[in-house]
């Protein structure tokens, strides 16, 4: 066999690509195409669906659910900002001050995520309960008003989503920061840069690939999340994910649900594209 391989060296990469590539085409590309097809169909579960190329479904869906679409984007951006604000100093500390404990600290960051996502979110529901251990005590002491509530508010939902995606931000940031040679920072300081300046003009730009990766890894799932809104939120925090889920699983309105899924995906891709443009622009000025 090695003989055959040597003769057909050019084919090797394609052979390697075939299993995974075909799988992705069959179970990622094809479903998306099916979703496009279903979105353009009309009908119902009883009468069957017919492909009528109903492109009108897209503007209709956007108009009907504009609030939820906008809200999802908003929440996504807030979550991304929060995870970045919380996660960056943490990644920085681990990368530059971690020393021998770097790996252990990283593991501490990931470990909570070895329990089920649902259990964690339910625990948050418990922690944030109106009369639960924390809020209840604060209310009894008098610091908080009896009518104060965290659950069923946007705060709870955003907090939940932030919590869930924090490690996804810390890890890529860490990887990018860890690669920076500390001597570069020293050199900057030797050249009279203050610590802040050294950070802003050396460290931050050098870690930009981590910032980019981290923000994507939190923004994208955040926008499409629905569990946190379902368990911790209320009617006013309905995200587009909740709508899609209900359309699919309760209303059985497959065309509208598929159309919204595609709109969501498109929105995310456009945002990512614009974001990438934005960061590229930044790099050039340094």
């Amino acid at each position, binding site marked *: 066999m090695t003989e055959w391989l040597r003769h057909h060296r050019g084919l090797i990469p394609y052979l390697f690509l075939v299993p995974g590539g075909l799988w992705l085409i069959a179970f990622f590309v094809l479903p998306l195409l099916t979703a496009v097809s279903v979105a353009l169909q009309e009908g119902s579960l009883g009468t069957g669906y017919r492909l009528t190329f109903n492109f009108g479904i897209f503007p209709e869906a956007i108009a009907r659910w504009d609030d939820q679409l906008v809200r999802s984007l908003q929440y996504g951006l807030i979550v991304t900002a929060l995870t970045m604000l919380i996660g960056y100093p943490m990644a920085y500390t681990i990368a530059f001050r971690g020393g021998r404990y770097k790996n252990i600290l990283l593991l501490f960051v990931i470990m909570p995520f*070895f329990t089920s996502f649902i259990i964690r979110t339910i625990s948050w529901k418990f922690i944030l309960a109106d009369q639960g251990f924390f809020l209840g005590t604060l209310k009894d002491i008098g610091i908080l008003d009896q009518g104060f509530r965290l659950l069923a508010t946007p705060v709870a939902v955003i907090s939940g989503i932030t919590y869930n995606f924090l490690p996804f931000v810390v890890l890529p940031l860490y990887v990018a920061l860890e690669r920076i040679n500390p001597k570069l920072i020293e050199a900057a300081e030797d050249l009279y840069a203050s610590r802040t300046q050294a950070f802003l003009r050396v460290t931050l730009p050098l870690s930009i690939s981590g910032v980019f990766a981290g923000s994507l890894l939190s923004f994208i799932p955040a926008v499409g999340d629905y569990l946190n809104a379902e368990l911790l939120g209320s009617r006013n925090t309905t995200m587009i994910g909740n709508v899609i889920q209900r359309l699919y699983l309760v209303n059985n309105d497959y065309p509208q649900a598929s159309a919204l*899924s595609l709109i969501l995906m498109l929105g995310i891709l456009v945002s990512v594209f614009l974001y990438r443009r934005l960061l590229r622009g930044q790099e050039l000025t340094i």
Partner: protein
Amino acid sequence: MAGSTGFAPTADRLPDRRRPLPTRIRTAVLPVYTGLVVMYLFLPIVVMAVFGFNDIQGRFNFTWQGFTLEHWANLFNRYPALNQSLFNSLTVAVISTLVATTFGTLIGLALTRYEFRGRGPLNLLIFLPIATPEIVLGASLLALFVSAGVSRDLTTITIAHIMFNISFVVVTVRARIAGFDRALEEAAMDLGADELTTFRKVTFPLIFPGILAAGLLAFALSIDDFVITQFTAGQTTTFPLWVYGASRIGVPPQVNVMGTLIFLIALVGIVLWVAFQRRDMTARPTTLER
């Protein structure tokens, strides 16, 4: 490199006892902050673990009613459906990890070491599943299965899990393979090894940590997956789905116990791995920097 430019060393490079207090506080800020964040990350875990010991009388597990080990004792007796769901989760996770890691590593190798046409579209194909929200992935798969008349069960769940795991494996493995120094391979071949042997004895062991990391990531993603699984599961239950269903009624303490158990097993595994890594320091890839 203190003092190399001839200027006096700055305050934080002084040995501890000579550092002024404000500097010490300032230096402590980041580690303290990190500690707080870690506590924040662990808070729900602690709550979950503690309430696995709650001696509840009725259905509701939200006020402390006493300590008991009963739930740990009858962990696998109380809810047969829970056991089945855990078994399903493990089955899917193991299969999807093995398959996705294999496929993904192959793609990673192809991407980093070979020339071929279609690199751009391939990168897009790998990246898109990560960029797509889970609900879109799950819903489209459901659309596909429904259109094709395929009924949803453990197989469809596994298919879905393999799909999203491939991308994560490629991304994880690629970094490791790219950082690998080809000079080592060339050295091996100079010494007479053919390609297959070189791969087996030089390349593979050195990229293995990356493959392992990718495999662990895939396993974790699969075990915990909810959204995609909810759409592709049909009647089957996996652990996250069971917990979700139970949460509508009242999460039994056994769920807390199981969550704690999973966490502890992972903890033990990681501790062992770190210890193993410490011993194995020489196995790192050789880049002469650092």
